[in-house]
């Protein structure tokens, strides 16, 4: 093992070496998401900015696709990170996993280049295969879609085979079944049908069920592992809670899908189903507050990695406010009739994705950096701790600012464009020119700059944290006893 504070792959096992590659690409793609988001934000204020060179439609597509892919890279990396540790055996088929990483990364680069360079021209069947599949958020051409499924299947093989060879823990069981759904549900976004209602029906299986079922469960597994490692919570308790939380999430989340079926031409019973489960969806979140307080009372929040713990706590709050509060404000069909597809949705989406998913990936990257530097002490009083604290603050302040600004613009749109204007083209442009909309977009931009500064600081911190630290990490009591 290399000296404390020195970045050395000798400190990592095989799965973790692969994981840090995924984390590196994930953070780079996070940067791309921020960059294209900022460009799209400027174009809201100055519509002719980069017009004809890098159009708003391309920027927006890159902003959202980069988010989906960096989170996916982060999740895959996090699973490889825990794999050997959790199973007690080296990763089965690690070479295939490494090959998959390079193929996946190369495919992402090619898709981004195609997005940037080839997005105008006639739409033909071959453009679905080679240029853009046309479905919002999952625009990747079909060759890349198939590639993603193959990559996820290789990932599934690595995970399932490793757990089957080693320890098949409770976390392993949930994870393996979740990965089947992760690969399987993506296929639903690849049908071709000329009926737009049917097309949207299947498309939501990817968008909603990936996000509110498979990703949430994956995050539950990662958090369970994180709690064992950073706070020394007993495995039996964590695994029992993982089963309970998966049941709660699936119980309300799967048919919560119905709130996306309100206005796409599906039968009207979806209004009842979607309304019912949307009303109940926040109950598990509220119930989990009880569990969090119970655990906090028991484990006194002791941790050997303060930045990771801070980001995990941020995840609990972000998930609650972003998904719970911001979701429920506009989820009932009686009000969603006016708010869907406005900046209200963007406000909810920004806070929910950042709060529920970005936070947990960042927490895992901090766990990885700690081990990469030889299990170095990472606390609030270490040298250069101001960087992770300011990155945490600026990213949250920027995100909250953007969320509030988009909330105001969405509120204005729901009134001027939808309720008063009746969703006509004229009303759409009236709402876009309204002073509340313009001011909201200005504040969103200012907050976006704060977020960008936070990202730069985060990237800098991840490259340098623990560099001058010579104290070893102290394991939480239960973990130390188990070691």
């Amino acid at each position, binding site marked *: 093992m290399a000296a404390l504070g020195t970045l050395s792959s000798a400190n990592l096992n095989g799965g973790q070496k692969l994981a840090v590659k995924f984390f590196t690409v994930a953070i780079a793609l996070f940067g791309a998401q921020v960059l294209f988001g900022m460009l799209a934000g400027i174009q809201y204020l100055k519509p002719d900015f980069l017009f004809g060179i890098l159009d708003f439609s391309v920027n927006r597509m890159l902003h959202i696709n980069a988010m989906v892919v960096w989170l996916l890279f982060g999740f895959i990396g996090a699973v490889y990170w825990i794999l050997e540790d959790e199973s007690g055996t080296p990763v089965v088929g690690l070479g295939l996993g490494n090959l998959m990483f390079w193929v996946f990364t190369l495919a992402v680069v090619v898709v981004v280049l195609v997005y940037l360079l080839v997005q105008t021209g006639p739409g033909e069947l071959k453009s679905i295969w080679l240029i853009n599949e046309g479905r919002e958020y999952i625009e990747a051409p079909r060759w890349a879609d198939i590639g993603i499924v193959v990559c996820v299947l290789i990932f599934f093989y690595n995970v399932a085979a490793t757990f089957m060879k080693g320890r098949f823990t409770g976390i392993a069981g949930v994870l393996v079944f979740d990965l089947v759904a992760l690969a399987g549900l993506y296929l639903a976004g690849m049908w071709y049908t000329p009926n737009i209602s049917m097309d949207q029906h299947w498309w939501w299986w990817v968008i909603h069920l990936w996000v509110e079922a498979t990703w949430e469960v994956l995050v539950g597994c990662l958090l369970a592992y994180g709690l064992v490692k950073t706070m020394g919570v007993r495995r039996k308790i964590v695994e029992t*809670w993982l089963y309970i939380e998966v049941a709660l999430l699936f119980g309300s989340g799967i048919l919560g899908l119905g709130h996306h079926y309100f206005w796409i031409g599906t039968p009207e019973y979806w209004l009842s189903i979607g309304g019912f489960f949307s009303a*109940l969806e926040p109950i598990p979140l509220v*119930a989990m507050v009880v569990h969090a*307080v119970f655990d906090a009372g028991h484990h006194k929040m002791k941790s050997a990695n303060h930045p990771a713990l801070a980001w995990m706590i941020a995840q609990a709050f972000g998930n609650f406010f972003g998904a719970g509060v911001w979701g429920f404000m506009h989820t009932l*069909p009686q009000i969603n009739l006016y708010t869907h597809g406005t900046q209200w949705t963007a406000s909810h989406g920004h806070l929910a994705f950042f709060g529920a998913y970005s936070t947990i990936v960042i927490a895992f990257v901090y766990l990885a950096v700690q081990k990469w530097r030889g299990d170095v002490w990472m606390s609030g009083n270490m040298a250069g701790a101001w960087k992770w604290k300011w990155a945490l603050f600026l990213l949250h302040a920027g995100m909250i600012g953007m969320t509030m600004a988009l909330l105001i613009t969405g509120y204005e749109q729901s009134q001027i464009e939808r309720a008063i204007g*009746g969703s006509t083209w004229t009303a759409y442009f009236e709402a876009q020119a309204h002073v509340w909309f313009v001011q909201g977009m200005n504040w969103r931009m200012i907050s976006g700059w704060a977020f960008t500064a936070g990202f730069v600081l985060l990237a800098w911190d991840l490259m340098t944290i623990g560099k001058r630290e010579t104290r070893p990490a102290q394991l939480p009591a239960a973990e130390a006893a188990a070691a």
Partner: protein
Amino acid sequence: MRRTLTSQERVVIEPVHLADFFTVFFSAASVILFGALYALLFAWSRVRGRPRLMPMAYAAYLGLAASVIVLGNAANLFNSHYWTFIVLLMLVGYLVAPHAIWHLCVGTHVGEDEAVKVSQQR
């Protein structure tokens, strides 16, 4: 200019009036926030053994109930049996969820430490 609904649509939902938009957003947010406050105070009271926090927890639940009723009125939920049933289900669900989760917490931590034993004796 409000969209005219068909008679079939009216059975299922009655859209919010323009003047009630803010009330709907605010009361819906309050439902979740009061729900979290209720759960927080409830759990804190039990985990720390401070029974005087429990009335505050139920006061938060009353805030939640008031928010649900305001939301129900503003979103026209009381105009149909189906939506009235959902309102009642929300009230019951938010009330019992912290109790249920507390029992699960105690059950999963059996014998772990003194605090749990105290809780079990209650």
